[in-house]
C-alpha cells in the first residue's frame, strides 16, 4: 500500500465544500474517490464547478477555482440516474465501494432509489454518510442550508462581533470547512467500526449540530448558570471569552513605511477620531497579555518607544484587575500607540519580548511571504487537465510513514468515465461509447 487510505474506495456524490472537503482528505491519503455527477445537468448541482476565481480569461464548467481546490486527486464520472442502465452502473460501483457519501438535501438519494436500505442490499457492510444542514431527522430536516445558514442557526454568527454592531459572523463558510471535517471523521469512524465488527452503518450528520458542539463552555454556562451569550452589553469577540486576559484584541497599525521608531510617520494619520478605530490603512495586529508579566513587558516597550505620545497612562493599568475593569479605555490607549507602528515591526518587537502577538495577515502575506506556510509545504501545485498547474490548499499535517500527496486537479466533467467503467467494471470501450450515445453516461 502506498497511501494510508489507499485500501478504500468511496462512491462520492458530495459537492460544494461541506461534502467535497471531506473526501478531499481521503483522496489526499490515497483513497479511490469516484465523484458521480449528472450528465444532464452537467454536474452543475455543484455550483462551484463553473464559478470563479479563474486562472485566466477562460470561463466554463471545468474551470472553477474553488471546485479545483476541493476536488484534487479525485476521479469524476457521469451517470444518468434517470435511466435504468445508469442505475445499474451505480449499483455495480457501490458493490465494490466501502462508503457512499453525499451532502444533498435530506431525502434526495432515497428518491433516486438509493436510500440506506437499498445501499445495504447492494453491499451489506456499506458505510453511508449523509451530510446536510439539519440532518435527516427532526422538525427542520426538510429545511435548506448552506454554510452561512448553518453558522447563523448554530450560534457561530452571533458569537462573532463587536459591541453596538450587528453580528459580524464569519466572512466565509467556516461550517462548510468544518462540516467537511466532521464528515471525514464520521466516514473514518464508521470504517474503523467496520474493521472491528464487520458492520456498516448510516451516519446522519447534521452540520448545525457539529456547529453547535463548538460552543462547549458557553453552553455549559447557560445550562448550569443560566447565563446567556445574548447580553444587553453585546459581544466583543476579540476579547478573551473564558480566561481573564487584557489587553486582548485586534489593534490598528500604520500602512506607511518608516512609521517605526523615528517618528516620521507622525503625520496625523492616527490622530483625530481614530482612537477607537483604524488608521484607515486596514493594517492590524492581534495582541494578548495573559498576565501581569506580559503586560509589564508591553508597558516597558511603550515607555521605551512612546511614539511621541505620553506613556504615563500605562501606570493606570498595572494590575490585571485594573485592566479588565477598564478594558475599553485600555484598548483606546493601546490602539493609539499601535497605530504608529507597522504591524510586522511591532510583531517582531513583541515576539522578542515573548508576548503573544500576530499581525492580522492578508492572504498574500500568509501565502507568499510567510515562511512558515512555505516551509510546511502548505500550497502544493496540482496539474489540472484544462487549467494546467494551479496551487491549492494542502493539508496542515505531515505523516512520517504515509504522508498525503496532492498531484492532480479536480476532474473535468466525465473525465474518468471510460477509465472507471473499463478498469473497475470491466466494460469495453465500445460499450462505453454506446452508453454515451444512449445518454446513460
Amino acid at each position, binding site marked *: *500500500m502506498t497511501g*494510508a*487510505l489507499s485500501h478504500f474506495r468511496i462512491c462520492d456524490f458530495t459537492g460544494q465544500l461541506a461534502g467535497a472537503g471531506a473526501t478531499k482528505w481521503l483522496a489526499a491519503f490515497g483513497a479511490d474517490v469516484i465523484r458521480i455527477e449528472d450528465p444532464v445537468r452537467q454536474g452543475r448541482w455543484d455550483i462551484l464547478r463553473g464559478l470563479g476565481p479563474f486562472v485566466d480569461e477562460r470561463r466554463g464548467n471545468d474551470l472553477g*477555482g*474553488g471546485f479545483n481546490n476541493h476536488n484534487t486527486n479525485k476521479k469524476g464520472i457521469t451517470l444518468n440516474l434517470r435511466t435504468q442502465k445508469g442505475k445499474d452502473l451505480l449499483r455495480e460501483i457501490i458493490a465494490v465501494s466501502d462508503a457512499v457519501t453525499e451532502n444533498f438535501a435530506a431525502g434526495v438519494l432515497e428518491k433516486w432509489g438509493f436510500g440506506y436500505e437499498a445501499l445495504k442490499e447492494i453491499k451489506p457492510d456499506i458505510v453511508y454518510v449523509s451530510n446536510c444542514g*439539519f*440532518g435527516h*431527522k427532526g*422538525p427542520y430536516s426538510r429545511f435548506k442550508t448552506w454554510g*452561512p445558514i448553518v453558522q*447563523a*442557526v448554530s450560534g457561530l*454568527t452571533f*458569537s462573532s462581533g*463587536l459591541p453596538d*454592531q*450587528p453580528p*459580524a459572523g464569519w466572512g*466565509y*463558510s467556516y461550517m462548510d470547512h*468544518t462540516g467537511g471535517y466532521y464528515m471525514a*471523521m*464520521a466516514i473514518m*469512524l*464508521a470504517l*474503523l*467500526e467496520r474493521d*472491528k465488527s464487520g458492520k456498516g452503518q448510516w451516519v446522519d450528520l*447534521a452540520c448545525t*449540530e457539529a456547529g*453547535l*458542539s463548538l*460552543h462547549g*463552555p458557553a*453552553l*455549559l*454556562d*447557560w445550562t448550569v448558570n443560566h447565563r446567556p451569550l*445574548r447580553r444587553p452589553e453585546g459581544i466583543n*469577540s476579540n476579547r*478573551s*471569552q*473564558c480566561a481573564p*486576559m487584557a489587553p486582548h484584541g485586534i489593534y490598528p497599525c500604520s500602512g506607511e513605511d518608516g512609521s517605526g521608531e523615528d517618528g516620521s510617520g507622525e503625520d496625523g494619520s492616527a490622530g483625530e477620531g481614530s482612537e477607537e478605530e*483604524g488608521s484607515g490603512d486596514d493594517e492590524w495586529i*492581534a495582541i494578548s497579555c495573559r498576565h501581569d508579566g506580559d503586560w509589564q513587558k508591553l508597558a516597558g516597550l511603550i515607555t521605551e518607544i512612546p511614539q511621541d505620545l505620553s506613556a504615563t497612562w500605562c501606570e493606570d493599568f498595572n494590575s490585571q484587575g485594573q485592566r479588565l475593569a477598564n478594558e475599553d479605555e485600555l484598548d483606546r490607549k493601546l490602539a493609539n500607540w499601535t497605530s504608529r507602528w507597522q504591524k510586522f515591526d511591532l510583531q517582531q518587537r513583541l515576539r522578542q519580548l515573548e*508576548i*503573544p502577538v500576530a*499581525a492580522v*495577515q492578508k*492572504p*498574500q502575506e500568509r*501565502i507568499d511571504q510567510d515562511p512558515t*506556510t512555505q*516551509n510546511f509545504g502548505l500550497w502544493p501545485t496540482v496539474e489540472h487537465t484544462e487549467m494546467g498547474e*494551479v496551487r491549492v*490548499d494542502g493539508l496542515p*499535517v*505531515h*505523516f512520517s510513514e504515509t504522508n498525503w500527496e496532492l498531484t492532480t486537479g479536480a476532474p473535468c466533467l466525465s473525465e474518468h468515465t471510460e477509465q472507471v467503467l473499463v478498469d473497475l467494471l470491466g466494460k469495453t470501450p465500445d460499450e462505453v461509447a454506446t452508453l454515451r450515445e444512449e445518454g446513460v453516461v
Partner: protein
Amino acid sequence: MSALTGVRVVEIANERIAFAGKLLGDMGADVVLVEPLGGDPTRLLPPFVNDEPGENRSLYFMHYNTSKRSMILDLDSEEGRATFLKLIETSDVLIESEPTTRLSSLSLDYADLVKVQPKLIHTAMTPYGRDDPLSDLPVTDLTLMAAGGPPWSCGYDDHNLPPVRGWGNQGYQTGCHYVFMSVLTALLYRNVTGVGQFIDVSMTAALNVTTEAASYAWLVCEATVQRQTGRHAAVVPTGETQIRCADGRYVNTGVPPRFPVEFKKLLDWMTEINLVESFPEAVFLEMGANWDGQFDLSLIGEDESITAIFSAGREALVQIANSITAYEFFIGCQRAGLSVGVIYSPEEAFEDEHFKARGFPVEVRHDDLELTLTYPGAPYQLPLSPWGISRRAPHAGEHTNEILADLA
C-alpha cells in the same frame, strides 16, 4: 462499545490539545490525561459551577475533558518518565502540544517511545509545526487566528472597525479537528499494516486552509477578498444578506429568490400577512412567479425586467422581515423553500425544538457535586458506534492509582 473502544490514548495536558482528547474519548477511546504536579492550569478557568470558583468546578475544564481519566505524572522526574514509558507501552496513540524540544530533552520523543511501543501513533500539534522554532513562542487562540487568516475575512463593511475573531477557541478547535482526523487515518492504516507513525500538525497551517476563497482566490489569480458585514468576504463587493427583523433580531437571507416558484411563494406569503397592498413592487414578484423557464442570472443589471424582479425579491424579504420576528421569518422562508437562517445565540439554538428532538442535549452525572448537568451532545450520529460522554471530567490524578495498578 463504540468505534474507538479498545484504543488507548495518552494526552499530555495542554489547553490547546484538550479538545482532540475529548473527540477521541467521546467515541470510546480510553483517554489518559497526563497532568503535571498540581494539575492542569485550565482547571481554574471560568466559568464555574454556580459561579463559585474551585478546582473541580470549572465548566471550561469539564467540557474539554469529558470521557477522560486523569493521572498525575512529573515528567521531570526519573520515576515519572519511567511510568510514562510503561503507560506508552500499553497505548496506541499519544497526542500532545508540548514545546518542540521538550519531549526530546526528556528522552520521551517519538524515537524513544517507539522502542517500547513500535506501533505508536504519536501526534504533535504545535502553532507552526514541529520543525519551526516560532512554535515555541507564546500564543493564544486570538493570535493564532490572526496569523492563520480567519480575521482578515471577518468583520464589517466599515474597515475602520477592526477585523473580528469569532469566539469559542475556534483556532484551537480547528487544530484539534486535524489531530483527530489524523489519528483516525493512522489507525485505519495501522489496522491493515501494523505500522504506527509520527504526525506533525500545524495549528496556523490548519487555519490557513480553513478560510475558503480567501486562500484560493489568491492561489488561483492573486485576488484579495475584503471583509463585509455578516457575509462572505469577497473580491467584488456583494449585496447585504443580514436583515434586522421586527423583534430587533437578525436573520441571514442567504441566496435571494431566483426561481419562479420562489417568487410565487413569496407573493403568496406577502398576501397572507397583508403586505401586498403596501408593496408596489409586488407586480414584479408576480412577473417573476409567471416567468417562463429559468432566469438567465447573467442578465441581472442588464435586462430591465429581470433586474426589477430580482430587486423586488430582495426588497420583499426586507419588507416581510420588518413586520415579523426573526424566528417567524426563518420558518416562513424555509417553508417557502428559501435557504434562510435565524441568527441564534448558542443558547437559543441549544433550546430549539429541532435539536431537542434529535437528542442533542445530554445529561452527565457529577457524583462529586451531586448534580446532573446538561452538556452539548453528539456532533454526528453513528447508530452502531454511538458518541457518548462515558464519564465526567476527572479530578486531578483521580485515576493515578488505578492506572498504576493496571501497569504493574
